[in-house]
């Protein structure tokens, strides 16, 4: 009986550890939110920073979603901006079509669902053929996907009139709409007049939801299956885990969360076009994930915030701005990955939590 209780003790300890890691992330988000709200209320915040709050939420969500693919599933996606683009366009389109026939909040909630579902569907469509392959194929195909989506949307014209929707890929004239018809997607000009529904509060709520989805998924049967295919595909198959199915699950959930980031982005701007959703953005999100520590959700969030805010904060340095930015990248990299730094941090953590074992690394 004594032995049995010992078992329970280890399991309890493991559960406490995983719960603590999850709660830490919610805690950080809520504390930062509270600080920001206080600063806004007391007016101690520059208009520059205030304008950055929603984009910060966008990038945090994007980084968390990409970490699910890169860190948990162990695949490389270079097209996450493409999924954001899908989410942004479908939701902005939805909001524009529905217009004022619905109150703001329910419409925005529906728009978020629309963006998430469409991005998720595209994730499945891309994932089915590609995730069967091994190696770098996914990276190449997702990179291409991001660019293709961008270019397709650049020539897309959509209008709506009493007969319903009209599509064209040549010009607005070819839509053949009634004079009363309304043009919604205007090719390279994108979508304008999207209601500005995104607020910092909604952004933070979406971050929390993203965290819940990602963390709960990771700490479940499906999460173990996903990570087992990452650690050893052959062994995972040998114990009966359908590898492709779980890679696809991780990929499509990630795509749909990236779509949510896109929705938030689209409803923060008067005009939405595809310029922002190029491969530079995809790479930037990957940089957040790598710098924050692959598989480490806390790190992804912090890296996303620092690296999004920093270039703006450093504007006063003019020409030296990108130099400082690069130095910060290197410093973060060293802090995260240098053996001496890893050692130092694990010792600090031990002292803080008073626990043993070298497995304390990582904030999954």
């Amino acid at each position, binding site marked *: 009986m004594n032995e049995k209780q010992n078992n329970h003790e280890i*399991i309890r300890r493991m559960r406490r550890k995983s719960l603590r890691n999850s709660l830490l992330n919610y805690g950080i988000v809520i504390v930062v939110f509270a600080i920001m709200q206080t600063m806004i209320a007391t007016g101690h915040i520059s208009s520059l920073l205030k304008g950055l709050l929603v984009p910060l939420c966008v990038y945090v969500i994007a980084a968390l979603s990409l970490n699910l693919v890169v860190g948990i599933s162990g695949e490389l996606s270079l097209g996450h901006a493409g999924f954001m683009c899908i989410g942004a366009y479908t939701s902005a389109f939805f909001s524009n079509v529905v217009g004022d026939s619905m109150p703001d909040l329910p419409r925005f909630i529906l728009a978020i669902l629309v963006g998430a579902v469409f991005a998720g569907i595209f994730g499945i469509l891309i994932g089915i053929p590609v995730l069967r392959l091994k190696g770098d194929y996914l990276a190449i195909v997702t990179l291409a996907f991001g660019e293709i989506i961008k270019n397709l949307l650049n020539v897309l014209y959509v209008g709506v009139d009493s007969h319903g929707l009209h599509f064209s890929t040549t010009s607005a004239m070819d839509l053949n709409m009634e004079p009363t018809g309304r043009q919604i997607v205007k090719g390279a000009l994108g979508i304008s007049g999207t209601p500005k529904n995104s607020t910092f509060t909604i952004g933070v709520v979406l971050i929390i939801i993203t965290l*819940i989805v990602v963390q709960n998924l990771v700490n479940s049967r499906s999460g173990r299956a996903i990570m*087992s295919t990452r*650690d050893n595909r052959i062994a995972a198959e040998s114990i*009966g*885990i359908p590898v492709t199915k779980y890679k696809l699950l991780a990929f499509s959930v990630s795509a749909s969360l990236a779509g949510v980031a896109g929705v938030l982005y689209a409803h923060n701007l008067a005009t939405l076009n595809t310029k922002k959703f190029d491969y530079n953005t995809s790479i930037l999100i990957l940089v957040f994930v790598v710098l924050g520590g692959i598989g480490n959700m806390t790190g992804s969030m912090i890296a996303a915030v620092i690296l999004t805010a920093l270039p703006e904060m450093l504007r006063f340095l003019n020409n030296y701005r990108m130099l400082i930015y690069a130095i910060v990248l290197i410093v973060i990299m060293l802090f995260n990955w240098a053996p001496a730094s890893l050692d130092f941090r694990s010792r600090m953590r031990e002292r803080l939590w008073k626990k043993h074992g070298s497995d304390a690394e990582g904030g999954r």
Partner: protein
Amino acid sequence: MAMLDVTKLSISFGGLHAVDDFNLNIEKGELYGLIGPNGAGKTTVFNLLTGVYKPTEGIIRLDGKDITGKSTIEINRAGIARTFQNIRLFKDMPVLDNVKAGFHNHYKYSALTGILRLPRYREIENTMDERSMDILKVFDLDKEADLMAGNLPYGKQRKLEIARALATEPKLLLLDEPAAGMNPNETAELMETIRFVRDEFDMTILLIEHDMKLVAGICEKLTVLNFGRTLAQGVTSEVLSDPAVIAAYLGE
């Protein structure tokens, strides 16, 4: 009825007959050894049995059911689990989670149940934890349940692989050189564990091994492979005294 019944199994890679006309019959509860010099085709036989390779010819029956040509995943569900010559653990997952991953097809709840943390999630996780700890205890790994699998010492990693395979609740367990890299003490202990697993879980075991002491010590029957062909087959003591077997191992 035989637990495993293999008839005329063959596979060739190009012109090379890696395994040729291989027959095997293992009764339920037997501890069976597959031995032979390096490159004889032992691991290829394992890969054929577990669906990693598709045989060119031949039939594999598990407990009377034809599993020839099925995928690795289907074969595991049908009841064959294995370990690997070069250890393949989920290194960046805790020891406990390695075993829980093995229970994947026995305790199920959907991804959505996991994300929403429905009551069913906690209920099944509890059962999985309990059962996993029971298996870990058999291998004396319960104290290390929270360590990352990659941080375990070598001998324990080998044991954890067996524990994970057992979690899939197989009818037939394939062990690919379980004693590789172990010192004599560890090997002796492993022999005890393998015997215990057979008795406790009522398991049928087929193992590849080079350590003759282990083979002679625990295997009831043997098949000797050489250049993909069966050299000798039968009761351990008889096979090991067969002149052809001695010649293959020691040279003429």
